[in-house]
């Protein structure tokens, strides 16, 4: 494959995946409101279209026609840059996630449903997520509002604290496969759920489960979801870092949060739940295509995200820091140790 073909195939893949991701974001908001409604014994959106299915589109149109306000005290350049950064970082992480096996389009073999299989895929994801803090922080700082600034400070401290745990929690697939390539990690989990890294073989089962739990918890913190949504705690900070934003700029923060949720769920699926492989290598399971299994696993994790939101109250700030540094981080380090010892024993 020469460079021109590679570029063309990548563009085709982006043209397919980008609208799909944006559509998923729109209907993730619908799903969240519908599920929250059910969890709280009410109906959720049900007026616009059947089952309220047109609600996200109505919301999008509404946000698009809202007045776009830039406050007088705001730092104009950074104020405009911040939502762009948030959205860009959220979308860039999608690039290395393998959504499915090789596929063909009009007789051309386009390779995996993955935009770029870079050989440091996992590091790429951590690099991009570490940049996402700038979107939030610059938004809060440039708004020229004390509540926004407080939200921004909280968020950067929080994302900073939980990033360490996030990075250490994925150590099992990394050490066992010996590669940072996303495709390599997915390929190592073929042929049945007992090969998934969440249920790693023999001595590795404890670090596998613990790593998955640590990953999920720190993913909640990284995506600013309840119980870690202190940067936008509405009872204390009005709305936190996006207080001064309106119209599409606000919508970009909103969409970035949901794209981040999808990304976090996709990474968990890829690293721990076997990616696009079916849970059993038997007939009724293998009839479904790879993308179906990927979507199903991502859906389960997203459902869990929403379920937690409906269940838990918000942490207090000192509890958040205490939990991150004194409980999660030592656990993550212990997990690295357990993984290493387990790998040594397993040979």
């Amino acid at each position, binding site marked *: 494959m020469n460079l021109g073909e590679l570029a063309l195939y990548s563009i085709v893949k982006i043209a397919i995946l980008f609208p799909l991701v944006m559509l998923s974001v729109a209907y993730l908001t619908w799903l969240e409101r519908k599920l929250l409604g059910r969890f709280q014994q009410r109906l959720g959106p049900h007026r616009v279209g059947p089952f309220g299915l047109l609600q996200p589109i109505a919301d999008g149109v509404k946000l698009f026609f809202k007045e776009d306000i830039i406050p007088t005290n705001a730092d104009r350049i950074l104020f405009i840059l911040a939502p762009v950064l948030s959205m860009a970082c959220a979308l860039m992480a999608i690039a290395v996630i393998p959504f499915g096996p090789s596929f063909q389009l009009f007789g051309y073999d386009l390779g995996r449903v993955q935009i770029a299989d870079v050989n440091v895929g996992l590091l790429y994801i951590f690099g991009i997520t570490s940049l996402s803090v700038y979107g939030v*922080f610059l938004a809060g700082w440039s708004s020229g509002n004390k509540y926004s600034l407080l939200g921004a400070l909280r968020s950067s401290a929080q994302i900073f604290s939980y990033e360490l745990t996030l990075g250490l929690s994925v150590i099992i697939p990394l050490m066992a496969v010996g590669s940072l390539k996303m495709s390599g990690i997915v390929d190592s989990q073929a042929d049945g759920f007992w090969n998934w890294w969440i249920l790693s073989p023999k001595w590795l089962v404890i670090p596998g489960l613990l790593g998955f739990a640590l990953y999920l918890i720190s993913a909640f913190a990284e995506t600013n979801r309840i119980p870690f949504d202190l940067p936008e705690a509405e009872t204390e900070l009005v709305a936190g870092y996006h207080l001064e934003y309106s119209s599409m700029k606000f919508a970009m923060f909103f969409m970035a949060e949901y794209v981040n949720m999808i990304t976090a769920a996709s990474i968990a699926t890829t690293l721990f739940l076997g990616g696009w492989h079916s849970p059993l290598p038997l007939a009724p399971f293998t009839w479904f295509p790879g993308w179906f299994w990927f979507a199903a696993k991502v859906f389960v994790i997203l459902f869990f995200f929403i379920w937690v939101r409906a269940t838990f109250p918000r942490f207090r700030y000192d509890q958040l820091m205490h939990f991150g540094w004194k409980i999660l981080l030592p656990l993550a380090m212990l997990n690295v140790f357990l993984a290493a010892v387990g790998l040594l024993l397993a040979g």
Partner: protein
Amino acid sequence: MLSAIFFWMFASAACFFAFGVILARNPMHSAVSLVATLIALAGLFLQLHAEFLAWILIIVYTGAVMVLIIFVISLLNLHREEPINLTLARRFGITFVGIFGFMIFVYLFTDSLTGFVYPKKLPAPEEFGSAASLAADLFTRYLLPFELASILLTAAVIGAVVIARKPCEEEEPKE
């Protein structure tokens, strides 16, 4: 051809934002320019097949160090730098240091003066820049400098804790 385009893109971006760091009046704009410079540098690393190093640069410098710097700037509430009034002697000194530094730079990188020969461009080996090859070098050939650096960093962390912690209990007034 394509790699040349990317090189000039990243290199000019790095220079542009590096000027932004020193010319911006607002400290926050300086810090953000530095972030952009580091990202452009990571882009240049990628071109040299040093993928691992490029992303470590982004994770450590832009993701951690610069976040702390921006944190401090916003806590100190520095909004606009005051114009500095320099005495004539200082202006003279700064100009001298600048010229001297530039001359060292020219001396080092001009082959007509020093006979400095640019290394020939060799094709990078297959595994170059990957995490595995980097680790193999780091934990065998360069083990001693690596461990020394880690001891130094540990010492720095302990020093920071000692400086930052609250005074001992004996020094506090007893109730």
